């Protein structure tokens, strides 16, 4: 491995101090922030010593926002303005939310993603999530004593592109630099795998408050390769609460509930579910604002019976994931349990029966995702040297295009390792057709209308030709965050169109800018000063990295090329001294453009060295 370490890119910049980076588990029920301190991953507590931040946000008429325990305490008395489990609404339209009637919120239908009417105005789930992330960012900055370089934010593996993009937008809104979106089960696998130095096939069963994921991973020589993933992005502990809630209504023979009473019963239902983790039965009582009441005993057996359907709903995706990975149950060496809902005895039993082995529960299922995310953030921030690990993750759902007759043509199948790119050629179906509409879809179903619509765009200006003569090449690129961008090009004329698959749920860059402005006014922060400061830090980092690379690999550049890069550095240095953050941004882009060829040559050299080392190892 010695040969490899010489070319380790993470080490190519000059020695630097520890860069502050965190991992954030943005959960349906609770959220956490963790970091790596002196080589150990630790969850950061608030001043009161709480690790968990309830993912609850309350909007007051004054414009003030409460997040966490304070908001949670107000849930029953102010149900319309107190948003819990907002993760379930990320990147989702009204039609996607099954139990909308039993939720106390005032939903507003908006293109792509629902919005919520609160005392402080209409809020998007992205804004609500950003409030949670902002509290965690401040908690981390206070604990670590400085500004964060960036954060790894976890998402359910089964999140689609819209949900991922919404999460990334929320982080941006909260002033966080997203180093990577990381799948929750993969994060858990890092924490477990590195803890136990494991090798082999592992399954991660992750049942959270509102989402279920199953991932099958192969751990080999420090590489975590996700073989397949499946799940249900609308199945979690909340659904178990809902079953108990319905049982309570039956027991009390309650008339239709007010929002406050519904919230009260849901809270009681959750308490009962949690009590059944430790006890075989629990007494459940509730007195409504109408004076109606209930008092009954819920046994574990009755609870298991009413939730059996939910438990088996997790096993179908588990079978699918194993089949996609082309593995049988006997080949799975261990099963890792993640998410607070895996504390339920019925879940543990069902998983043990299915995999014919006792699942691993030695790490706290509430914290393991945040800890893994923190470890990955530490790597991505460049704090670790050559001995680290590598994650190879996949896309959870197939990506495709709508074709004639409303059918789906898959371009990238599910469980393809990312980053990935694939191109498909299409043609015109009418003589003289000059425009073509491209509809990007995600999902496994044959009918386009059954898949999630990610984006629509038009390719115009195709030269008129007979039907079938035009050759339109549509290229999908999925980056390491699992986010898609699509471009289309008519081959003979070179007409081109591309989209960041983003605006389909109604939040464009303008909205983000407005929300950012709102947020900063609220926080009495100086947006301009902050933006300037960020650009200066970025520019300085870029100059230092470029200089280090030039010192290391001067042999890869001609005198002319060196002079061009030097000129771009000099220009950027001049801009840093000025007050214009947009000009600095342009200078950064110019320097990046000037070094692209150099970066390619450096990479070629890295690859040659790595493969040379590989051959020595193979034959040695």
């Amino acid at each position, binding site marked *: 491995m010695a040969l490899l370490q010489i070319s380790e890119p993470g080490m190519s910049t000059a020695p630097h101090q520890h860069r502050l980076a965190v991992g954030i588990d943005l959960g349906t029920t609770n959220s956490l922030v963790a970091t790596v301190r002196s080589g150990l991953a630790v969850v950061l507590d608030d001043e009161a010593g709480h690790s968990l931040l309830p993912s609850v946000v309350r909007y007051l008429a004054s414009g003030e926002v409460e997040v966490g325990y304070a908001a949670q305490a107000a849930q029953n008395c102010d149900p319309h303005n107190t948003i819990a489990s907002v993760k379930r609404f990320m990147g989702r339209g009204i039609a996607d939310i099954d139990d909308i009637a039993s939720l106390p919120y005032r939903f507003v239908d908006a293109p792509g993603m629902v919005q919520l009417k609160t005392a402080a105005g209409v809020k998007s789930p992205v804004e609500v999530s950003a409030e949670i992330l902002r509290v965690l960012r401040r908690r981390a900055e206070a604990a670590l004593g400085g500004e964060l370089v960036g954060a790894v934010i976890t998402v359910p593996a089964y999140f689609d592109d819209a949900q991922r993009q919404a999460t990334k937008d929320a982080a941006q809104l909260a002033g966080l630099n997203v180093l990577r979106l990381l799948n929750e089960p993969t994060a858990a696998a890092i924490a477990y795998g590195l803890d136990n130095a494991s090798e082999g096939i592992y399954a991660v069963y992750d049942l959270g408050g509102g989402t279920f994921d199953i991932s099958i991973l192969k751990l080999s*020589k420090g590489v975590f390769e996700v073989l397949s993933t499946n799940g249900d992005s609308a199945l979690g502990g909340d659904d178990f609460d809902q079953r108990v809630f319905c049982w309570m209504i039956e027991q009390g023979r309650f008339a239709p509930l007010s929002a406050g009473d519904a919230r009260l019963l849901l809270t009681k239902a959750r308490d009962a579910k949690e009590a059944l983790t430790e006890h075989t039965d629990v007494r459940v009582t509730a007195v409504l604002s109408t004076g109606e009441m209930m008092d009954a005993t819920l046994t574990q057996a009755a609870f298991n019976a009413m939730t059996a359907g939910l438990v088996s709903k997790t096993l179908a995706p588990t079978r699918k994931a194993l089949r996609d990975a082309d593995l049988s149950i006997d080949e799975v060496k261990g099963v890792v349990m993640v998410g607070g809902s895996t504390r339920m005895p019925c879940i543990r039993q069902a998983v043990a029966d299915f995999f014919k082995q006792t699942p691993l529960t030695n790490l706290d299922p509430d914290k393991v995702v945040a800890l893994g995310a923190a470890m990955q953030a530490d790597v991505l921030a460049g704090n670790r040297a050559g001995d680290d690990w590598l994650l190879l993750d996949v896309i959870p759902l197939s990506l495709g295009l709508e074709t004639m007759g409303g059918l789906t043509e898959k371009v990238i199948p599910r469980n393809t390792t990312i980053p990935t790119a694939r191109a498909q050629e299409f043609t015109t179906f009418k003589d003289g057709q000059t425009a073509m509409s491209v509809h990007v879809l995600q999902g496994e179903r044959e009918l386009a209308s059954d898949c999630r619509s990610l984006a629509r765009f038009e390719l115009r200006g195709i030269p008129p030709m007979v039907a079938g003569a035009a050759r339109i090449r549509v290229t999908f690129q999925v980056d390491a965050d699992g986010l898609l961008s699509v471009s289309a090009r008519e081959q003979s004329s070179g007409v081109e169109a591309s989209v960041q698959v983003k605006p389909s749920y109604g939040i464009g860059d303008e909205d983000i800018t407005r929300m950012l402005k709102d947020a900063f006014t609220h926080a009495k922060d100086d947006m301009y000063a902050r933006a300037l400061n960020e650009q200066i830090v970025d520019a300085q980092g870029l100059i230092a990295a470029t200089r280090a690379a030039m010192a290391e690999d001067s042999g890869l550049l001609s005198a002319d090329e060196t002079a061009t890069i030097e000129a771009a550095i000099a220009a950027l240095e001049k801009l840093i001294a000025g007050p214009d953050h947009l000009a600095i941004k342009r200078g950064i882009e110019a320097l990046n453009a000037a070094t692209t060829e150099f970066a390619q040559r450096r990479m070629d050299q890295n*690859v040659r060295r790595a493969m040379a080392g*590989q051959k020595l190892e193979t034959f040695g």
Partner: protein
Amino acid sequence: MDFTQTHFELFGLPQSYALDRGKLDAAYRELQNTVHPDRFAAQPDAEQRVAMQWATQVNEAYQTLKHPVSRGVYLLKLQGIDALDANNTKMAPAFLMQQMEWREAIDDARAGKRMAALDALTDDLRAAHRRIEAQLADLIDTAHDYAAASETVRQLRFMDKLIAEVGDVYEELES
């Protein structure tokens, strides 16, 4: 990135259908360790972009060589032959008969909701898949009979489709 390099050259492997899977996996890990965007997350944009391009290319090459059908198609493409050409559908009658029998067996298992029959079918199909792979290795690596190899690749693709159909039936019966 050298686009004239073949996927085999990229991983330092001999250009043949017979594959040392351990060597491919090891070379893939080594390459991704070197080029993956996670190795450049703290680096300038230019390096991050190059890393994404490289990692994308390495993934593509790995998937192509790893899967029996795509490896065959790729090797034939290197010989200038399009094995999946839509005009080329020649297929041995005996193979087509066998296909029909398998398909009927799948339908029967599905109609009768017989999981054990599906399990047995899966084993049969996998065994047949392995046999065809061995033939393909022979045709490409030893006999250099690329016309016959094209037909064999198409047979292998049929097998993949059948195995996927069995998967769909499992899914249907389980839900």
